[in-house]
């Protein structure tokens, strides 16, 4: 017998036509899946009733894969093949990853994105994330007893195109239809129903297990703009556990602990931290391997004291984000708390004091992002119509643009443009006779290309040769609803066109991408050679033209033999220009320069004579003074 959910008036689904949609919070430490049931967003639990899925994947030799608690348990035993925090590697090259040397993995440098060597083979972060998503998908299909229409997956607001595309690909690999990628702070705001609230600026304070993010969102007409983001990628709830750990060792005057004891004590410290959320005092007791007993009590005040620096460390990025947005704490209309670590009373107090208002904490901070994603997924799946028929728009987090002469960035789509969007801008050639234009697409706010993230390069070839500045090349940037970009360049007079879908390259899971990257690298070298050749040809032609003009004027200064000699050298240069050997052109130019040296001297003498003839030395001297 089927189980039914309550629908909106007039919206009962026809049998077998339920539009099941889920929201997924794909987190660094933990992931969740949620859906809307009878009009209410709820997180889906696993068979043991746990809502969280640790974002940990373990690969076995036989290719079997453990995901979640199972994998996390064995993390210490098999660190090389147990991948934690894979989100930090998504769409990232090795040089982009902080503290790469302290990680236990065998990284493999691959174009665009690192890969990890496990004993089940080489895995890209996309594949690892796909395992987490597969597990969540299976949970959802089980819980909803049906086929999923699609999912909304959340990503940090600061994720660039490469990271978003990698997330989308992971979903595709997991067999999920991505309805939309949604910024995490936006999802949290939706969960609190802020999208229906008064327009204004909201702050989302997200302190997770190992990362801290602050986002300043502006709501106007149901559209969330990301005004500023900031954070610390190495600051989270785990650091608070560690502070308690150090405090216990100091208080109990413990000798250095064995790894086993250390792990168990760390666990006790975490439990104590969680206990202090609702209690004034937490006991920490543990029998060590040496049979020594640790028995100590931690009270809320002490806990607040020993973690004061951590708390204030989170406020630095908050101040910076406000400054970036050009706002003061008073301008913030509401503060949303996200992440389990925000349950700590000292965090809530510090944030409340800073913004001079009570932060929103009535939703479970672990679940709030997933709940918001589910609400959005339900909407996109078409389960809510009528007067509530709004589609929440998102904005692009960083400006998109291209490289212009001198390594400068030209922004085509400014950040915070609502998506989907398309913008076009006209560019022109820099040199006479330029027939190709390299287009380098970048993302970022900085003025210099070197400081922005390179997304893609492509070439528009077959531009008719014209004087510099005459060609009209229209470059169109288009961003779809997921924040993914395609760029088209079109020469307006001939209609020659080239385009690219910005799908940053990361390796073997997508052979096409690998090929594309190889292509572009091969072209880069060809192009450099071609440009140098063209430059030599242009210079040689200029030289012939100048020599011939001089001959036409002053041939009488030369003997017939000399004229013949010069003409032969010109013919030689002309021949070399017709070929494609840059070295020959340069040699022929040197020859012509040598042969015309005497001619040049004589012409110089002649013109000096002309100037001086008929004038007295005196005139010349006074002329200088005049």
């Amino acid at each position: 017998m089927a189980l039914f959910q309550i629908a909106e008036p007039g919206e009962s689904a026809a049998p077998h036509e339920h539009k099941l949609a889920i929201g997924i919070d794909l987190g660094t430490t933990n992931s969740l899946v949620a859906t809307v049931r009878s009009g209410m967003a709820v997180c889906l639990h696993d068979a043991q009733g746990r809502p969280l899925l640790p974002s940990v994947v373990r690969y076995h030799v036989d290719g079997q894969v453990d995901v979640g608690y199972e994998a996390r348990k064995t993390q210490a035993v098999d660190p090389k093949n147990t991948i934690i925090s894979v989100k930090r590697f998504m769409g990232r090259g090795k040089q982009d990853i902080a503290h790469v040397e302290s990680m236990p993995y065998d990284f493999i440098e691959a174009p665009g994105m690192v890969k990890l060597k496990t004993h089940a083979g080489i895995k890209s972060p996309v594949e690892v994330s796909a395992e987490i998503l597969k597990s969540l998908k299976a949970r959802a299909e089980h819980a909803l007893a049906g086929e999923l229409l699609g999912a909304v997956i959340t990503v940090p607001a600061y994720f660039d195109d490469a990271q978003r595309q990698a997330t989308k690909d992971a979903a595709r690999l997991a067999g999920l239809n991505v309805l939309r990628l949604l910024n995490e702070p936006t999802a949290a705001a939706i969960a609190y129903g802020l999208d229906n609230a008064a327009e204004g600026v909201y702050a989302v304070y997200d302190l997770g297990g190992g990362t801290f993010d602050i986002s300043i969102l502006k709501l106007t007409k149901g559209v969330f703009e990301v005004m500023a983001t900031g954070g610390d990628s190495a600051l989270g709830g785990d650091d608070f556990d560690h502070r308690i750990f150090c405090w216990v060792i100091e208080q109990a005057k413990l000798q250095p602990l064995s790894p086993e004891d250390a792990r168990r004590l760390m666990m006790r410290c975490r439990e104590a931290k969680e206990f202090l959320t609702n209690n004034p005092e937490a006991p920490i007791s543990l029998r060590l391997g040496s049979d020594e007993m640790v028995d100590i009590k931690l009270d809320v005040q002490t806990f607040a004291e020993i973690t004061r620096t951590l708390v204030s460390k989170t406020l630095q990025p908050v101040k910076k984000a406000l400054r970036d947005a050009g706002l003061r704490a008073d301008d913030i209309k509401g503060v949303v708390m996200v992440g389990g670590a925000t349950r700590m009373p000292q965090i809530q107090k510090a944030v409340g004091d800073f913004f001079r208002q009570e932060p929103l904490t009535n939703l479970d901070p672990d679940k709030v992002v997933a709940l918001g994603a589910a609400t959005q997924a339900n909407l996109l799946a078409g389960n809510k119509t009528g007067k509530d028929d709004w589609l929440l728009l998102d904005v692009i987090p960083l400006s998109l643009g291209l490289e212009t002469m001198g390594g400068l960035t030209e922004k085509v789509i400014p950040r915070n443009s609502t998506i989907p969007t398309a913008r076009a801008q006209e560019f022109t050639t820099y040199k006479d006779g330029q027939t190709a234009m390299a287009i380098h697409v970048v993302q970022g706010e900085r003025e210099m290309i070197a400081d922005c993230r390179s997304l893609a390069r492509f070439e528009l070839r077959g531009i008719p040769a014209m004087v510099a500045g005459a060609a009209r090349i229209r470059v169109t940037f288009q961003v779809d609803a997921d924040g993914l970009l395609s760029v088209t360049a079109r020469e307006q007079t001939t209609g020659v066109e080239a385009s690219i879908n910005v799908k940053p390259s990361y390796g073997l899971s997508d052979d096409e991408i690998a090929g594309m990257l190889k292509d572009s690298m091969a072209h880069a070298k060809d192009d450099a050679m071609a440009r140098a050749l063209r430059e030599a040809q242009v210079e040689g032609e200029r030289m012939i033209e100048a020599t011939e003009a001089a001959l036409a004027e002053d041939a009488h200064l030369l003997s017939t033999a000399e004229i013949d000699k010069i003409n032969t050298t010109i013919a030689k240069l002309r021949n070399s220009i017709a070929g494609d050997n840059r070295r020959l052109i340069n040699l022929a130019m040197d020859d012509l320069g040598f042969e015309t040296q005497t001619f040049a001297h004589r012409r110089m003498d002649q013109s000096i004579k002309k100037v001086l003839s008929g004038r007295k030395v005196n005139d010349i001297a006074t002329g200088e003074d005049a």
Partner: protein
Amino acid sequence: MGVTLSESAAKHVANFLQKRGKGIGLRLGVRTSGCSGMAYKLEFVDEVNEDDQVFEQNGVKVIIDAKSMPYLEGMELDFAREGLNEGFKFNNPNVKDQCGCGESFNV
């Protein structure tokens, strides 16, 4: 009075209504569609129509339109959990047979 709402079902309906923030009650109904002829309707109610009958069950208003009434006579709505899934269950004595999944039925 032909339809009953189990205590657990009523509690969930009340909870959902409260979370939704508006609505007067729960509409039960049938319509002709689906692979076995009829399908249930289970919706929130914002407006009561002229031909609706309104009952109160365990503190929850149940609204049924006149046309659906004969098919639902004697039915009990329950809230059940099956594995990870949970939702409302129609226990309808009028049903002669139903499709494999139970989403549509025949009387």
